[in-house]
């Protein structure tokens, strides 16, 4: 029986687990501890937990001060606010001095659901990855989330961790040979006709898309890109060379996210057709998560269509 669990819930457990092992970890939240799941740490280690109220800019700044004094500081809010509202603070108080602050953005993307466009951040990957020295992580499931939290703690410097609210299948938990390494993508399925590079909850959809494609005789390679920065350029370029076409898929604007990062990599080392699949540069809206995913085309079927288009572009390029 497949296990379904949101990355934010898995995150909360991991933070409590690793936070208990490392007394240097301090945690800030801005009145969303119940939602970001930092509350578990807060209940276990109240002396190292600081709920600073609805004031994200100050939260990031205080975390920077804590990090300057030797702590590993985690800050939490919805992605819209931790990456968006506090952008200047993340850039100037955290990343410019390269302080050990981990920016957690939960409720990222359309899968927030009914709260609507104001809370559906589809720009955070772009915002965070353009800051020099920032690491950007977007795990796809519970197992990968725990591994990402561990890696973020072990890495010295700023990090953005993108989490979702939706319950997603824990696909990497029992995957033979699965190994998480920061900065290295994971090949979930090999294929020769096209590569689908996915991040976050679109990884599960990409796996389903590969099954659709297989029935139509198309062999798709599936890459799980949990680290968007630093990007595993070697893996991406190898896939470009060996499959000749790429589809990127993400629960994010098609601009500046994983798709942008992949295009930047292949355009330099191995230009091949790249179809960027995601939210087509428009705001989200209120609705049930499942309905929104269909309305905005974030489905395995759409990914499969993009893959077929990519394959056809490859043929055109060869001709």
């Amino acid at each position, binding site marked *: 029986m497949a296990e379904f669990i949101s990355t934010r819930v898995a995150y909360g457990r991991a933070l409590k687990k690793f936070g208990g092992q490392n007394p240097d970890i301090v945690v800030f939240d801005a009145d969303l501890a119940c939602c970001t799941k930092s509350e578990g740490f807060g209940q276990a280690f109240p002396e190292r937990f600081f709920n600073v109220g609805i004031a994200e800019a*100050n939260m990031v700044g205080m975390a920077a001060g804590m990090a300057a*004094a030797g702590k590993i500081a985690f800050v939490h809010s919805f992605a819209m606010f931790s990456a968006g509202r506090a952008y200047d603070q993340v850039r100037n108080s955290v990343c410019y001095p390269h302080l050990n602050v981990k920016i957690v953005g939960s409720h990222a993307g359309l899968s927030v659901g009914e709260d609507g466009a104001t809370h559906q951040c589809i720009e955070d990957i772009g915002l965070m990855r353009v800051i020099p020295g920032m690491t950007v992580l977007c795990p796809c499931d519970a197992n990968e989330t725990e591994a990402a939290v561990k890696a973020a703690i072990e890495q010295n410097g700023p990090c953005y961790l993108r989490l979702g609210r939706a319950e997603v299948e824990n696909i990497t938990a029992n995957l033979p040979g699965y190994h998480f390494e920061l900065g290295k993508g994971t090949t979930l399925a090999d294929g020769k006709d096209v590569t689908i590079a996915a991040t976050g909850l679109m990884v599960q959809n990409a796996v389903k898309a590969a099954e659709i494609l297989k029935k139509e005789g198309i062999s798709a390679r599936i890459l799980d890109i949990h680290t968007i920065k630093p990007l595993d350029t070697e893996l991406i370029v190898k896939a470009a060379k060996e499959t000749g076409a790429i589809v990127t898929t993400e629960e994010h604007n098609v601009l500046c996210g994983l798709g942008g990062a992949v295009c930047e990599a292949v355009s330099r080392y191995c230009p091949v057709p790249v179809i960027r699949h995601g939210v087509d540069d428009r705001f989200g809206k209120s609705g049930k998560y499942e309905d929104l995913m269909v309305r905005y085309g974030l489905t395995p079927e759409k990914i499969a269509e993009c893959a077929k288009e990519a394959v056809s572009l490859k043929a055109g390029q060869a001709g």
Partner: protein
Amino acid sequence: MEQKRVKELAVTAAKVRLECLEAINACHSGHIGGALSAADILTVLYFEKMKNLDPENPKNPDRDRLVLSKGHCTGALYPVLALKGYFPVKDLKTFRHIDSYLSGHAEMKHVPGVDMSTGSLGQGLSAAAGMALAAKLDKKPYRVFAVMGDGEIEEGQIWEAAMAAAKYKLDNLVGFVDVNGLQIDGTTEEIMPSEPLDEKWEAFGWNVLKIDGHDLRAISDAVDAAGECSGKPTMILAKTVKGKGISFMENKVMWHGNTPDEEEYQKAKAELTARLLELEG
């Protein structure tokens, strides 16, 4: 504080002003007005009040810390740090130069003695509060100072930090507002009136002291008084003169970011040098 010590600090502050002028004149760039208004506060803090400072070990974990939230006033901070011994005074001539480590705004990675990178206004008090909170968590006795501009506190984040510092009872945090009454586009009164500052900070749960920000003894006494206050952070509202020490720059909006031409430089240098000689004599 003994009169002799006050006089020594006055000499140091005069040297800081002279080095400030030289640094800014060398690169024809910088913020001289606000640097001169904060020069006395920074001098007293670094040369008299801050504990466990060690220029040979700038990151000593037990040191008092200072966050120059008005991060553009490196024209004062860097001369103070150089005279304190963190780096050679002669390097001040490379201020803001492409090959120099002495950045335009305060920078903690490459400038020895700088405790926090600042420049984007309104962010320093939060960082200082975070450091003060870390001291509480680690049960260390160090104090944290934050120096803000009176224009800067128009930023909302300052007031977010003000609430948080009061919530966590950060009595090891001491803020200064350099109340020179001017900001880049005009007087604070016309751009965004912020008075009554004392009532505002008190309402946010702070212990508030008002001083003349050029009275060295008053600065020192206020820092001591802040140390006596338990359970809440202290904000010292320091009334200052923008451009202090150079007659034609004092209280003039244009000297926020302008730099002197050769004639003005010579006149300013003569004034500051005369003042230094007078104090030393």
